[in-house]
Structure formats: structure tokens, C-alpha cells
């Protein structure tokens, strides 16, 4: 379907964006990669009067490491996440996630800021930033504000962003040599949104004990779901098949998935248990696997 009649303005700086936002108010919608927004326009699922193109605002670009923190500009495209050497080194979970997002032509346009701001519950990147304990840097005419990723996603397609705030960047704390991360998902077709997925990050010390586990599921709730009880079932324990089974069992209390077009809640719970095993079992020690 064709898009509706709509206005368009391009901001080349944050100051210009603030001016445009003040002028158009709630009638305005930010346009970054547009890979979700423009499809919703075609379906008349959203009805902005004017699109404010932010893709040429230099302050929202770039990937850099400072004081051990990886800062990823909001306009970073999924394809860039997949090939950037700093991302590969400091947040390999994001590099691993990139190929799971839609298709190559979409990854060349879609942005991390857009994905986080849209907050689709089945999307990969919201779950990843929660798993990584990232911080969302929001900016508005009032200045910058930092929101922990865990507090950023507040409900179905809802975020902690105020109406005049935009995402400037994502900051990811440094990774340690003991850090392990993994993202996996189950989808009916390659590139589809996941029926269920898991972004996991944890540390394994020299004894094989788990510390700081974060298992974050997507496609099973109204946003990314941090499985606190499954994490607690792993924390401090040697990662073995008994520990994985305990984490799987704890998911019963962590997850309350709604039925959706893919199937009933129990199917999603089953998939979450399967994903937990698949994500963690490669981290088992060789002796454990041989048993």
C-alpha cells in the first residue's frame, strides 16, 4: 500500500531537531532507519503528520570505547553492529544478534536506536541490551539522561523515553575474559521475528562457577523478560547439567507468556526451556559433556 500524504523535514543537528519538535509537537514522528515505521505507515497503523529525519545528525553516530565503556551511537545500523571490530571485541552478543535481525537489505537501514525505541517484545536488540546491563543515553532539549536498559522497557511497545526525548546512544560496560554470551532464537522462517529467543550473558570463573548470570527472553512477554529466578538458580553454582536443569525449572516462575499467533503459553514455556539448554550447554566443561 502507498504511504498516506505526510510531511517531511530533515534535521542536521540536535538543535534543529528540537526546533522542529517544538514546532510540530505530537504530530511529528522521528524517522531513523524507517524499517518498521514505514511499514506501519503503509498499513495505516500509525498516523504521524510529519516525519523528522534524524539520520544526518552526526551526534547520534559512531562507535567508540572510552574508559572501558563501549558507546554505540543510536544511528548505528544492524549491519554495522555485525561487522564492527569494537562491537565484536566489547559486545560480541550484539555482533551475534545482528544476523538474526530480518534480512540483509533491512539490516543495512535499520538502526539500534530505532529498534530500542520501538521496543518490539520479539526483537533481539532490546533483550541484548538488558542482558548486557547496558545504559540507554536519552537526550532532549533539557540535556542528557541515563536509563538502565532494565528500566527502559516499560510495557508493550512502551519505553521510559519522555515525549521530547530521543535515544542518543547505548553504553555497554566492559567485558571480562571470563564473560560468556550467547543469543539464540526459534523462528518459523529465517529473518522472521522470533517465536521465542534468549539473550544470555554470564561469567564463568576458573572453577567453572557461574557469576552475574543474566538470562533475558524475548517473544515471550510484553518486552524483554529478565529471568531472575533462573539466574538465581545458576548464580554461584558450577555450570553442569544439574544447574541447567534447575534454571529450566525456575523459568516456570519467571515467565508468564501470553498466547499469540504462534501458539499457547505452554508452547512458549517449552521453547524457553529448550533455548536455555541450547544456550548454556556449549559452556559445559568437556568432562560434563562426555558423561
Amino acid at each position, binding site marked *: 500500500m502507498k504511504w498516506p500524504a505526510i510531511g517531511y523535514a530533515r534535521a542536521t543537528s540536535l538543535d534543529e531537531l528540537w526546533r522542529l519538535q517544538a514546532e510540530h509537537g505530537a504530530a511529528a514522528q522521528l524517522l531513523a532507519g524507517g524499517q518498521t515505521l514505514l511499514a506501519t505507515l503503509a498499513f495505516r497503523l500509525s498516523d504521524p503528520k510529519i516525519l523528522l529525519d534524524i539520520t544526518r545528525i552526526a551526534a547520534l553516530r559512531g562507535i567508540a570505547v572510552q574508559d572501558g565503556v563501549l558507546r554505540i551511537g543510536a544511528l548505528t545500523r544492524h549491519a554495522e553492529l555485525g561487522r564492527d571490530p569494537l562491537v565484536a571485541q566489547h559486545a560480541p552478543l550484539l555482533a551475534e544478534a545482528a544476523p538474526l535481525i530480518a534480512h540483509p537489505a*533491512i539490516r543495512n537501514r535499520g538502526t539500534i536506536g530505532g529498534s530500542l525505541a520501538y521496543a518490539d517484545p520479539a526483537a533481539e536488540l532490546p533483550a541484548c541490551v538488558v542482558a548486557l546491563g547496558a545504559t540507554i543515553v536519552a537526550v532532549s532539549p533539557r540535556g542528557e539522561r541515563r536509563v538502565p536498559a532494565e528500566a527502559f522497557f516499560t510495557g508493550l511497545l512502551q519505553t521510559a523515553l519522555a515525549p521530547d526525548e530521543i535515544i542518543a546512544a547505548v553504553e555497554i560496560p566492559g567485558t571480562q575474559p571470563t564473560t560468556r554470551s550467547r543469543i539464540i532464537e526459534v523462528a518459523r522462517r529465517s529473518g522472521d521475528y522470533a517465536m521465542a529467543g534468549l539473550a544470555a550473558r554470564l561469567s564463568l570463573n576458573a572453577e567453572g562457577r557461574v557469576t552475574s548470570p543474566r538470562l533475558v527472553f524475548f517473544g515471550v512477554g510484553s518486552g524483554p523478560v529478565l529471568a531472575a529466578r533462573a539466574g538465581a538458580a545458576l548464580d554461584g553454582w558450577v555450570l553442569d547439567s544439574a544447574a541447567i536443569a534447575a534454571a529450566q525449572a525456575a523459568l516456570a516462575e519467571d515467565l508468564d507468556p501470553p498466547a499469540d499467533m504462534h501458539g499457547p503459553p505452554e508452547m512458549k514455556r517449552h521453547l524457553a526451556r529448550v533455548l536455555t539448554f541450547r544456550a548454556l550447554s556449549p559452556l559445559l566443561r568437556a568432562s560434563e559433556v562426555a558423561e
Partner: protein
Amino acid sequence: MSARIDITLMVNGERVSRSVEARRHLIDFLRLDLGLTGSHAGCEHGVCGACTVRVDGEIVRGCLVLAASLDGAEVTTIEGLTDSAEVADLQDAFVACNAAQCGFCSPGMVMAAADILRHHPTATREEIREHLSGNYCRCTGYQAIVDAVEQTLATRREDRR
């Protein structure tokens, strides 16, 4: 609100200046304003891949890009790719393998497959399928399409020895 936006961009190596409505997507701009009908408008919501073109050297969904946003951009369509002969061998393989049935998906398929030739010269059959997974062929002629890409990759590797 529906004021027109002035844009100047390169399309297949030629400088083009036009005034476009904001609601114009890149594919309608190419087809209706420039007469370049090689790129196809299929689903028009980013699912089918028939509209695959290059913007600034990388493939995109033309139906999910505003023409108005492309001031200063460089766009390559199937017409430009054909004229450059960059994938003449791939196009020959499409013919030889009967990889174009009704032909509707073919321009987008070739644009996406050209991306494999350029970025993934050692792609396996599985990787080819994965890379083309966003391009639908409603004749379901996928085997022949993957055959054509696989053969082209193999021939290019052979020629490089």
C-alpha cells in the same frame, strides 16, 4: 504538510534533480518519475524483496526508503547493474538455470545475489539461501535461483586460480 521536497542524487551514475512528495518511496520514484521500471513494487511493506536496489553501495528495500531522504545519495538499480556488466555472468547463469520463471522477483533476486558475489565469495549453498531469505519467489523457483548463484560463485572461484 504535503509540500514537495527537492532532491538531487545520482541514479545509475547520472545526476538527477527532482521535486518529490514525502510519501513517494524510492521504487515509485524510480518507476514513475524516472521511468526505470526494472525495480518492482511488490508487497510495499518490506517483506518480499522485489524492490531491492542499492543505496550508497548497499542493498536496501526500495519500498522502505523515502525518496525525499535521498538528497546526495547514490542509487544503483538493476538497469545500472546490468549496464556495468558487474553480474553479467550471474545473469547468464539465471538464464541457463531457468532461474527466472514469471520474472517478477528476478531484478530483486539479482540485486540481492550480487551482494553475495561481492561480500561473500565463498558462500555455501546454505549461506546463499540465508542471504536470499528476504526475497520471495512466488513461482517458488528457489532451487534454480540458488543453483545459479552457486554456479556463478564456483565459476568465479575457478577463474581466480
